[in-house]
């Protein structure tokens, strides 16, 4: 994996966060938006080396912190945890689209819950807000819907070329 691919991966996460803050300001079915930045981090964790995936997750999360309204570091920590979990499950001998989609749902759910816990610990009062469960479940469902295009884009941009007999 070259540094060029790391830069591309970082660009993908930053683009995802920028789209999150602009496009999903307008497009919010049922009043919720997907967690696109988190989905991109999950997708990148499938194709990057562990250290690179963690570094990019932290940096992307920090960028989301900068554009968000919560204390700096919360999304950085959350993305790092999600990337770490994604790295742990990616090497399991389980394959198939339903399993991957289930993984996206579960990891997004964990990420949203982690952020809610951290946010509450740092004075944001997220957990006791009415409609809290919706903020966990609906973005996770939206991420499942968006998983295919995001994984495809991630794959064609950062996945290392597979070696064949001719290379």
């Amino acid at each position, binding site marked *: 994996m070259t540094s060029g691919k790391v830069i591309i991966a970082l660009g993908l996460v930053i683009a995802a*966060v*920028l*789209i*999150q*803050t*602009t*496009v*999903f*300001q*307008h*497009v*919010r079915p049922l*009043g*919720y*938006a997907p*967690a696109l*930045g988190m989905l991109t981090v999950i997708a990148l964790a499938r194709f990057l*080396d*562990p*250290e690179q995936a*963690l*570094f990019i997750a*932290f940096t992307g999360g920090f*960028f*989301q*912190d*900068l*554009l*968000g*309204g*919560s*204390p*700096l*570091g*919360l*999304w*950085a*920590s959350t993305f*790092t*945890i999600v990337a*770490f979990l994604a*790295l742990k499950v990616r090497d399991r001998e389980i394959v198939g689209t339903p399993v991957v989609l289930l993984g996206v749902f579960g990891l997004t759910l964990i990420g*949203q819950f982690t*952020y*809610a816990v*951290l*946010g509450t610990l*740092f*004075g*944001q*009062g*997220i957990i006791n*807000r*009415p*409609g*809290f469960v*919706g*903020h966990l479940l*609906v*973005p996770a469902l939206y991420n499942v819907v968006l998983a295919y295009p995001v994984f495809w884009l991630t794959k064609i941009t950062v996945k290392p070329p597979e070696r064949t007999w001719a290379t």
Partner: protein
Amino acid sequence: MFPSGRRLDRSTALFVTLLAVGFLIATFDVRSSGDSVTTVIRGGAQTLAAPVQEAIDFVVRPVVGFVDGISNVAGLSDQNERLEAEVRRLEQRLRETAALERRVAELEAINDLAPPEDLATVTALIYSAGASTFDHIRIINRGSDDGIIVGQAVVDEDGLVGRVYLVTKSSARVRLITDPLVSVGVRVQDTNQTGVVTGRGDARLRLDMFDATQPVSEGAVVLTDGSLFPPGIVVGFADETKAADVGFALRTTVDPAAAFSQLDFVKVVVGWSPLDADPESEVPLIDAPSFTDPGSERQ
């Protein structure tokens, strides 16, 4: 065997280190709340991201509008008939209201009250929202170059929207009144009793009154009291009729006047700050130093 084990150890160590760094940054940011290096970093990031965000918004906005239009075409005929009936009804009410407006203007003159619309405002476009579904912030395309400073109230045609909490030269961040971190000093219009409205995320606002000698009636208009926001701005409408439960403490919910899911253009009230309020009368000093000419609203 050895390389993969060492790799796992390295990644775990990096994971723990990054988590520790994240918590340290968060602690520093929370503890320094206000003017600190984190505010500068946020402002710098906002300045860098603003052109890209505005460009994306510029491209996406018409597309979303077009798609919305297509999806609404089926209901347009019924809606048209309903709106025509509504227009006839409103024209009738307008004629009745004209007389009332004259009386209100006379009363305001007598009581030396100034309606909020007399305050200098700067119109701004919302081009970005918070970075997650938990955020209740908006980013507008006006900043310190337009006279916007931290603390100013943001309104739309329906009522109070929020408060500016971070400003760069060309943009500003607004924390909505639905954010649990925002509290608004209010008074109920029909009883003139005061209280505090607090955001609850996506749910309706919470109204706490600590000295409620009279009940709050359903639909009662809740206005800003002039303590932190300019007085007389509509915050919302009481959801239900409710009397004090224990002693004089009353807690109920308020339906916000502003439609936060449809915010597009807003106005930042630049001609008023909490320091302009006379603590005795709670009447704003309209002639206090302002950043724009009250008569010249920018767009």
